[in-house]
């Protein structure tokens, strides 16, 4: 019976080979500084998007060479979105890149850009504004349809494993975020403010998708914080989306999340009070979802200033003592540095010119000027100073980098009902916005240097770009006119640029593959992958 034994051996070999080929995310790499992989939205759990790689540095960045580009050509116009735009930060695991646009997931060979597989979702509603990417656990990827479905797919094949709906798109919840995987938790947030949702963050079991816990962004009857609302009903419809990933400190076992704007959005007359825990930074216990502390960066928001910007973990020494800090450049133009063990403030100061604040309260939270609120006849204040685009913090320079927009708009109140609903207002932007890359000293909140991007027209803020800083003393980003750019991290001088087919639209990533440092950025429907020219890597 020779023949069967041969078959058995062949099968055994095949099984071994398939195990070797199967993509499996080593859990030990999660949370480690990203070098040979980029396994989460931010690369690691700090949110600093800093890479210790320095093969590419200020001396050789000008010789970056495009190795391949990947253009999404088969999708075309999606509902309300004429051109697909890659807003996702790719994951890089074992030589495969995983990235998304709304309703589509792609796996590509990181060495060549060749498609390995793709996955499509047919939505039944939900907002197609963007998709920020994926979470990964073992060999499973987690992707969100816009209509509140969490879909688990096999990272080797793109085959669906299970799907779970976490909210109802008919109630105007929608989902665009990149799920964040921490230990055995898949953390998923929601967006939606057209219809006065009650925001929440949910933790799912990575194997089954079952709900482990759910944290509501606004308090229920009798819960702490309800005193910041005029009624339980107002709190139940008070907004507070959770539509970007957060960060995690394994020693404290705390996750840090930014919460979105309050609802009704521009009409605050029906929700007098601070409106906790919307427009805040919250610290939650990873395993229970219980609130440990909060800091409200935009109390009683009436300007659509979602506070979902990344709460970046910063470890530093102050007066010779190691400190666990958290820094955020918020959409309302305010920069805060907090002690992440307890939420106590160290720095609280604007990073753009603002006219809406009357100083800070005793906790260091900005005090909104009641005279600067949307009115029927119009009220002028700043437009959003930044948005979902990823910031970066470099421990090498001690600088926090953010792409910021300075500009003003006239905010109108449209819904004067004592019980307004939905948006309830609008803003008419005055169209002379200027975009800056700002490098903020985390010790003082002072802008150490800034670069004004030349632009004839008002700088649009609908797209990224996100930021990446490296130990090569570089910051990678882009302008809003199609240029991918590398800056010197300490001084802010431009060292490299590349004219892409659209404006840079996601968070850049970098990693080491086959001994080469790669930089990957998206611009519109195309992903661009670079390494140094061989000579610049010291190879003759």
């Amino acid at each position, binding site marked *: 019976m020779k023949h069967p034994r041969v078959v058995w051996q062949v099968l055994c070999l095949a099984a071994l080979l398939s195990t070797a080929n199967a993509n499996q995310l080593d859990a030990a790499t999660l949370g480690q500084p990203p070098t040979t992989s980029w396994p989460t939205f931010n690369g690691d759990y700090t949110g600093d998007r800093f890479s210790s790689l320095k093969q590419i540095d200020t001396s050789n960045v000008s*010789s*970056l060479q*495009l190795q*391949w580009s990947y253009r999404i050509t088969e999708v075309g116009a999606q*509902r*309300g979105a004429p051109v697909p735009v890659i807003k996702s930060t790719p994951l890089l695991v074992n030589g495969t890149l995983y990235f998304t646009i709304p309703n589509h997931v792609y796996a590509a060979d990181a060495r060549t850009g060749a498609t390995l597989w793709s996955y499509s979702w047919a939505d039944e*509603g939900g*907002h*197609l504004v963007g998709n920020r990417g994926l979470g990964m656990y073992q060999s499973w990827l987690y992707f969100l349809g816009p209509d509140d479905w969490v879909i688990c797919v096999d990272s080797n094949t793109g085959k669906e494993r299970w799907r779970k709906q976490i909210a*109802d798109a*008919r109630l*105007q919840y929608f989902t665009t975020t990149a799920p964040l995987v921490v230990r055995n938790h898949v953390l998923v947030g929601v967006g939606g403010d*057209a*219809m006065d949702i009650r925001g929440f963050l949910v933790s799912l079991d990575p194997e089954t998708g079952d709900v482990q816990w759910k944290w509501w962004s606004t308090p229920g009857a009798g819960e702490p914080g309800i005193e910041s609302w005029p009624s339980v009903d107002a709190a139940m419809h008070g907004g507070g*989306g959770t539509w970007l990933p957060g960060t995690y400190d394994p020693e404290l076992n705390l996750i840090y999340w930014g919460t*979105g704007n309050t609802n009704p959005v521009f009409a605050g007359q029906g929700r007098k009070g601070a409106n906790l825990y919307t427009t805040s930074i919250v610290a939650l216990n990873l395993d229970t979802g219980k609130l440990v502390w909060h800091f409200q960066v935009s109390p009683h928001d009436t*300007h659509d200033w979602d506070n979902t910007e990344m709460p970046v973990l910063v470890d530093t020494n102050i007066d010779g003592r190691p400190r666990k800090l958290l820094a955020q450049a918020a*959409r309302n133009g305010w920069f805060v540095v907090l002690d992440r063990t307890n939420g106590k403030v160290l720095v609280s100061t604007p990073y753009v*010119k603002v006219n809406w604040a009357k100083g800070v309260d005793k906790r260091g939270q900005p005090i909104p000027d009641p005279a600067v609120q949307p*009115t*029927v*006849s*119009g009220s*002028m204040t*700043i437009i959003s100073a930044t948005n979902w685009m990823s910031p970066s913090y470099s421990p090498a320079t001690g600088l926090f980098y953010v792409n910021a*927009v300075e500009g*003003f*708009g006239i905010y*109108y109140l*449209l819904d004067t*009902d004592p*019980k307004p*609903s939905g*948006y309830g207002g*609008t*803003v*008419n*932007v*005055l*169209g002379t916005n200027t975009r800056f890359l700002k490098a903020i000293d985390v010790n003082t909140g002072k802008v150490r240097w800034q670069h004004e991007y*030349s*632009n*004839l*027209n*008002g*700088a*649009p*803020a*609908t797209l990224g770009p996100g930021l990446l800083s490296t130990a090569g003393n570089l910051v990678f980003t882009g*302008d*809003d006119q*199609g*240029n991918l750019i590398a800056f010197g991290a300490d001084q802010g001088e431009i060292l490299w*640029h*590349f*004219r892409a*087919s*659209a404006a840079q639209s996601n968070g850049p990533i970098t990693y080491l593959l086959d001994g080469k440092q790669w930089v990957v950025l998206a611009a*519109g429907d195309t992903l661009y992958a*670079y390494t140094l020219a061989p000579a610049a890597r010291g190879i003759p």
Partner: protein
Amino acid sequence: MPPKGVTAAIRAVLVCVLLASGSADVLAQPPHGVQVPPSPDAQTPSTAQVLPPGPGAQTLSPSTAQALPPGAGTQTPSPSTAQALPPGLGAQTPSTAAPGPPRSAQAVREFLGLGPAPDGEAAKRGAPVYAANCSFCHGPQARGAEGPSLIYSELVLKDQHGTLIADFLRAGRPEKGMPAFATLTDEQRKDVAEFLHQQVEDVANRGTFQIKNIVLGNPKKGARYVAAHCLGCHSLTGDLRGLAEKWRPADLQHNWIMPPRTGDRRAITATVHAPQATWHGRVEQIDDFRVVLLEGSGQFVVVVRDAGVTVELHDPLAPHVAMIGNLADSDMINVTAYLETLQ
């Protein structure tokens, strides 16, 4: 390859000749009107809504971009770009970055995934039925009174064309104090459903929003402000007259602070100095790496902003730009009220 005799530092390329009139709409921004819907969602910043969805908002207009000859990328951008271009990429023209926001109510509805549009006629028929039967408990606009708000109601939001609501109204929910409306006809119950969908539409679909009458300021105080600040450049009997007929109030308020950049008179111009040449013209595009000028002769010039190249911008609207962020709301609304009176 750059022609000999032109230094790498300059590399100005006469790209092509276009009639100035042909490119006049390149930078024309539509008036910042109330018809433009607010931001597509909280995730897109508020600036989104005033960006004209048309050409030219961010970079080269399609006409200008198309006029660049294939391979122009090897001449104008920096050397690093030129080397790195794989076959085919060089022919790609810079395109506008962001798709503009959808403008019509239907487009916003689709973008937000709001479901089917309400039947406006049925909603009108349903309004008096609702007023007579429902508003006492649920409020005139269904936002709640004694009874709960109906625009948050899951039953309402999940209903399509009255199928759920009509059945619910026929039976009511007596145990919770919601009576049955069995005496209404099926048609009336469906009309009430469409009325409720219309209330949701008015709240949730930003594409339907209209700015109200904003002219609430004090025209006398506005006149004093104008006399003190504006008459160096403007005339009460000349260019400040008749603005109210030209623009709706919210557009007027926007445009007197920041006028649309229409016409040569309001265009930003630049003088560009390079070691061996100087150009002057209307700025068509500028970024950190190049400036595109339209010269008086009607020719476009692309100048790479290498070391030694300086760009002096001249903005005829600089006094208006300076008002932004500094003008008091009271002055803003008083001046708007005053300009409304200048027939």
